[in-house]
């Protein structure tokens, strides 16, 4: 009788141990899977946010138009990081959105990194026919007072942007009388942002769609990596 009770007790202990081991294994498995999932998500965000250029072409030197100056040579784009965006002020949808995202990214970076490491945002109008330098300056300042607004002749703009796959095309003026009278055309354009390093080399690009948080993180990673070189 006593022997039987001992056997039963031993059986129960074994069962408890097995259950405990299974539970422990399940907890470990869940934790491992969760960590793997988090890592995968991070990789996906980085891949879609920033693409590094392995060849690091130098930024072409052209002269652009800037308000209150005789011209802006792109040779001045050095000594700090720059982000270049090609858009136009008549754009009602994408350009205001992009400038807002860039402003939000700057807000994050201002909290996280040294002022000397902050990028200079350059908004370059690809619609010089309507966008005068003074107008571009005022337009970008409404989003962030640190943003610089530039424009230029079409050949200079093309020489600057096309080596990096950035293109635009003036759309036909809609056939309505009001559109014709007011020259209300739109411009189809790329929304890729270029990242230029302090040596005036194009380090990479941020393809659309853009998220302020993801871009800020990718930017921080990028400048950290550059410092290691």
């Amino acid at each position, binding site marked *: 009788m006593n022997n039987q009770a001992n056997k039963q007790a031993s059986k129960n202990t074994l069962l408890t141990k097995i259950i405990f081991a299974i539970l422990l294994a399940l907890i470990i498995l869940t934790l491992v899977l969760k960590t793997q999932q988090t890592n995968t998500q991070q990789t996906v965000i980085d891949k879609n946010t920033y693409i590094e250029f392995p060849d690091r072409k130098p930024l072409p030197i052209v002269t652009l138009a800037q308000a209150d100056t005789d011209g802006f040579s792109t040779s001045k784009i050095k000594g700090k990081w720059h982000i270049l965006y090609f858009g136009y*002020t*008549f*754009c*009602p*949808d*994408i350009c*205001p*959105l992009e400038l*807002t995202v860039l402003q939000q990214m700057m807000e994050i970076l201002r909290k996280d990194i040294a002022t000397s490491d902050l990028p200079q945002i350059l908004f370059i109008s690809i619609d010089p026919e*309507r966008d005068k330098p003074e*107008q571009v300056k*005022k*337009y970008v300042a*409404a*989003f962030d007072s640190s943003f610089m607004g530039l424009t230029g002749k079409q050949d200079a703009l093309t020489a600057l942007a096309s080596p990096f*796959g950035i*293109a*635009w*095309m003036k*759309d036909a003026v*809609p056939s*309505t009388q*009001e*559109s014709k009278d*007011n020259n*209300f055309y*739109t411009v*189809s*354009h*790329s*929304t*890729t942002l270029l990242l230029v390093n302090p040596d005036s080399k194009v380090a990479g690009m941020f*393809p*659309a*769609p853009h998220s302020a948080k993801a871009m800020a993180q990718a930017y921080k990673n990028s400048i950290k990596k550059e410092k290691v070189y």
Partner: protein
Amino acid sequence: MYKSLRTFVISFMILLLSQIQACSSPEKIEIIDARVRTPTSVTKALGGFMIVKNNTQNLISLVDVKAEGFKQVMLHETINKDGMHRMEHREKILIPAKGKVIFQHGSYHIMFMGLLKEFKSGGKIPVTLIFSDGQEKRVQFIVKDSV
């Protein structure tokens, strides 16, 4: 006496409930969160965003839009093809039966062109939306700093 009073009260309640339901039944077309971004001092064009909800059993199209204070107003759609963003004029935008269409960045928007007056943050822009079934809906677009 009590029975007829009870019948009367119940009938009255049913009638009242049916009336409440009739009052709260949604409009044929509902416009939600109509808004534009506060323009800068040099802004020449604005994008209008909203949600258009069709509560009917029939497909309805938004066929035109009118607003004062602009040289021209049109229905537009932004198309992203191979990384190039292009805007196209739309003659009509279909709103499915019992469905909705979201006017948002990178998609449908109302294109307000040639601002004829100042639009300040918090202000309202009266806009008339014209649908294929003939109804005209007057909507106030809110001018917001962030859209």
